[in-house]
């Protein structure tokens, strides 16, 4: 068959397929009537493309059919799962399981943070001047202004400030967590540096404010939102280290495949990190800034930490979680 006859015969079919594709690619829900012949048209298109190549029809026709097939292939293999059941499954089982699955990495990243924080804290208690090696002069002044009982001015704070700080926490903290994770891909160095640096900074702030007599305002402020916020940073660091290790020591996998597996394992953790940090920003902006008795704030803070730890350690264990396994 000559090319022009071939085109003449199948052109209507290709045009019908293009109409279906336009309907499928538009954001609106397509009309089922336009899709009746879609899969049959796609299959014969595959056949016609093979014929076109075999018979040496023109490159332009080959390109046209290939492009059509590329679009159709993308639509045919698209899948949508209902969102709500997936979200429920994610928070009840998938996220805590993903965290526990990589517990070693999260432990390492937590230790990096806690040990560096403890070390810097102890050093500053020993020699207060050391705070200036970790924190710049402007930041020291900011810290004192925020937490020192004599310097801070909480009376002017209102809803507007709460919303502003909420935006700032979202922008700043989630950005840090995401960057920490991505930095882990650089052989783990980025995540490690981020954890050590953030730990040192926290230790310096805590040590300095303790010496300055602002320990109580500081700890009553950070304890509640610290639970989701610090945990999320630890998890992001752990996920980053997992990525870096996949590149460094892929084991019996190809490096690229090891990286892909690690990315698949880390993805639920990062969704969880995102959710935790949004929660932390809410608590930080709208609860931590309230002036309440220290006992209440410590009590709520302790409850936050306990609940979060129990959730990460025990949620999604048991037989029910077996079903969701392999739902990737």
């Amino acid at each position, binding site marked *: 068959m000559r090319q022009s006859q071939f085109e003449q015969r199948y052109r209507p079919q290709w045009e019908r397929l293009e109409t279906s594709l336009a309907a499928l690619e538009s954001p609106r829900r397509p009309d089922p009537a336009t899709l009746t012949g879609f899969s049959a048209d796609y299959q014969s*298109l595959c056949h016609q493309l093979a014929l076109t190549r075999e018979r040496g029809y023109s490159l*332009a026709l080959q390109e046209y059919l290939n492009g059509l097939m*590329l679009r159709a292939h993308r639509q045919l293999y698209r899948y949508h799962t209902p969102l709500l059941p997936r979200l429920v499954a994610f928070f009840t089982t998938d996220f805590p399981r993903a965290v526990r699955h990589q517990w070693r990495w999260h432990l390492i990243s937590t230790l990096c943070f806690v040990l560096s924080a403890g070390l810097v804290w102890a050093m500053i208690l020993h020699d207060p001047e050391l705070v200036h090696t970790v924190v710049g002069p402007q930041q020291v002044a900011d810290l004192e202004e925020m937490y020192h009982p004599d310097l801070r001015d909480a009376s002017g704070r209102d809803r507007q400030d709460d919303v*502003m700080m909420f935006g700032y926490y979202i922008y700043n903290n989630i950005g840090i967590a995401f960057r920490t994770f991505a930095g882990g891909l650089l052989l783990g160095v980025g995540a490690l540096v981020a954890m050590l640096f953030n730990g040192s900074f926290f230790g310096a702030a805590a040590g300095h404010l303790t010496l300055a007599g602002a320990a109580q305002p500081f700890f009553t402020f950070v304890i509640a939102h610290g639970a989701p916020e610090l945990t999320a940073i630890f998890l992001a660091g752990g996920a980053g280290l997992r990525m870096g290790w996949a590149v460094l020591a892929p084991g019996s996998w190809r490096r690229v495949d090891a990286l892909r597996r690690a990315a698949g394992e880390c993805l639920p953790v990062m969704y969880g990190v995102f959710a935790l940090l949004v929660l932390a920003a809410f608590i930080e902006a709208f609860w931590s800034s309230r002036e309440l008795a220290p006992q209440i704030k410590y009590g709520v803070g302790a409850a936050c930490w306990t609940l979060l730890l129990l959730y990460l350690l025990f949620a999604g264990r048991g037989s029910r979680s077996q079903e969701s396994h392999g739902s990737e």
Partner: protein
Amino acid sequence: MRIDDQLHIDTPEGARLTLSLAGPLPRALAYSTDLAIRGLALAVIAIPLMLFGRGGMGLYMVLLFLMEWFYPVLFEALWQGRTPGKRMMGLAVVHGNGAPLGFNGSLVRNLLRTADLFPIFYLTGFVVMLITPRAQRLGDLAADTLVIHTPPARAARPRQDGDGEVPDWPLSRDDQLILLAFSDRGAGLSTQRQEELAALAYPELAPAAAREKLQRVARHVLGGA
């Protein structure tokens, strides 16, 4: 062996899909376009938000966060793997097997953008793209995604009238392809260039005569008559 940037994928239907990979330059241009769009959108949004004082600042920072991290994710996941910049450059993101990009894949490749940015101006991503066979940056490797050129919509071919002429040599498959390419793309070339090409086939004829003869032979191959 041909060295080009085409990638062949065999689909489950047994057909062969050809993707053409996008290199660093079009991707950088698409990225710059997106950057400009984002900057412009944020500037426009900032003006009314300024009226709301510090509360507006908070909303603005939430938007800043969403624009920085989720602008590419949402567009790629919901809009056939294309951000506005990619669409303008005729690019799209697909998975390594030609399958469409979902939310997960898009999130992985965009979260890891920071690693590709390191230390400055996407240097890591650029080097990785040059040494990987499928021009992927680190985020693409982890998410198993490719950035491809989406074929432009083909304009309807003008009818070619006139009679064909049987070629005076045994036609090989490659010859056939070349003749068809000449008939497809000839209209886009200047007459002089067409004559130059025709002279390669018929060096003994005058350029104009050679061109007409070649067009007749191409029409015969196409089977227009």
